[in-house]
């Protein structure tokens, strides 16, 4: 036939184009990435922990916490007077918080404990909560205030328990608060009608925008966490406020009842995971 040559070439080209399209589909949709398995901790740390293990700007604040630890309160005592100059007495202490000691008090987390020690045993002013993480524009050079002190102290005390598995008691007197926290964790809230579980349990490991949602197991171990996005060390209670904003719900007051119950339940999900304060996050 006159057009045999062109038919063969045309047919061959069509075949080649078709084959490459068929092969392109899995490449485009990611099945041929051939990545090795992501490391087991990646899902809970958005892949940023590798960077944080090497270099974490939050480590600077641990030394400030150490200075605060040794600073004397109004009655001359410092944290170091009871707990040792390098916090030796507190190794493993942070792994038991939040705890419930009595029904009058309810859940006691580490921030509340620090303030209790300050008011009852050091006769000093309690630190303010870390309700604001961002430095005021006009005081760029003066980073330090009472809220900063609380964050640094919290970071220091938690860092004494680095490597020690979280071990929060959820039975006995703590059980009813744990149940309340569990109910909160699984309840839908806000305009977006999302519960903590909706995102982190049912979709943990998947991406929300550019960020990977962390799975609940291991989340407690990284707080207080250095966050690149705000260039600051954030505490867990502050993070609850950010999550509340994200679902457009009523913002939980820091260290009040619903947030404390939530912290008890939420941290107990990470029982057995070793602490690694400060964490590193996007």
């Amino acid at each position, binding site marked *: 036939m006159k057009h045999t040559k062109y038919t063969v070439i045309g047919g061959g080209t069509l075949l080649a184009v078709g084959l490459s399209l068929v092969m392109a589909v899995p490449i485009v949709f990611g099945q041929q990435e051939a990545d090795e398995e992501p490391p087991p901790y990646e899902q809970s740390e958005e892949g940023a922990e590798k960077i944080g293990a*090497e*270099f974490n*700007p939050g*480590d*600077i*604040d641990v*030394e*400030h916490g150490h200075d605060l630890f040794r600073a004397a309160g109004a009655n001359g005592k410092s944290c170091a007077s009871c707990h040792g100059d390098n916090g030796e007495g507190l190794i493993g202490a942070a792994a038991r918080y939040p705890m419930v000691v009595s029904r009058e008090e309810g859940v006691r987390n580490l921030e509340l404990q620090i303030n209790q020690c300050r008011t009852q045993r050091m006769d000093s002013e309690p630190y303010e909560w870390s309700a604001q993480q961002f*430095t005021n*524009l*006009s005081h*760029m*050079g003066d*980073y*330090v205030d009472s809220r*900063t002190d609380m964050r640094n102290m919290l970071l220091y005390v938690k860092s004494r328990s680095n490597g020690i598995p979280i071990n929060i008691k959820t039975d006995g007197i703590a059980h009813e608060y744990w149940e309340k926290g569990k109910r909160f964790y699984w309840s839908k809230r806000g305009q977006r009608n999302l519960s903590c579980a909706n995102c982190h349990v049912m979709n943990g490991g998947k991406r929300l925008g550019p960020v990977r949602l962390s799975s609940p197991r291991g989340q407690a171990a990284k707080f207080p966490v250095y966050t690149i996005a705000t*260039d*600051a*060390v954030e505490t867990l209670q502050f993070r609850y406020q950010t999550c509340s904003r994200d679902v457009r719900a009523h913002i939980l007051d820091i260290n009040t009842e619903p947030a404390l119950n939530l912290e008890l339940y939420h941290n107990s999900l990470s029982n057995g995971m070793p602490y690694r304060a400060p964490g590193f996050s996007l």
Partner: protein
Amino acid sequence: MAKLGDAMVRVISPRKGQPTLVKAVISHPMNSGDATDPKTGKKIPAHFVKKVFGDFNGKTIFEADWSISISRNPYLAYYFTPTESGVLKMTWEDNLGGVFTKEANVSV
């Protein structure tokens, strides 16, 4: 947060004769002088790091000129090749005369 001038220098896995990564961060406001303080209505005076030096065993291995375009708490990473063990010293000098240094041990 950290105080002005707090720095951290880490040398990542140093190996003799191999390019080695150095990471450094300093707490510094890096005010450009253009921003306005919302409380007073006046411009916040310029306060930024002008020069960065990296010395290894006394010899300058890294030098940088910074200006207002570098943002707050600047992070820096660079490579150098250590031929012996020693001390790596980073120095930051700012426009108001502040000098901040931090050292890190390098053992190969």
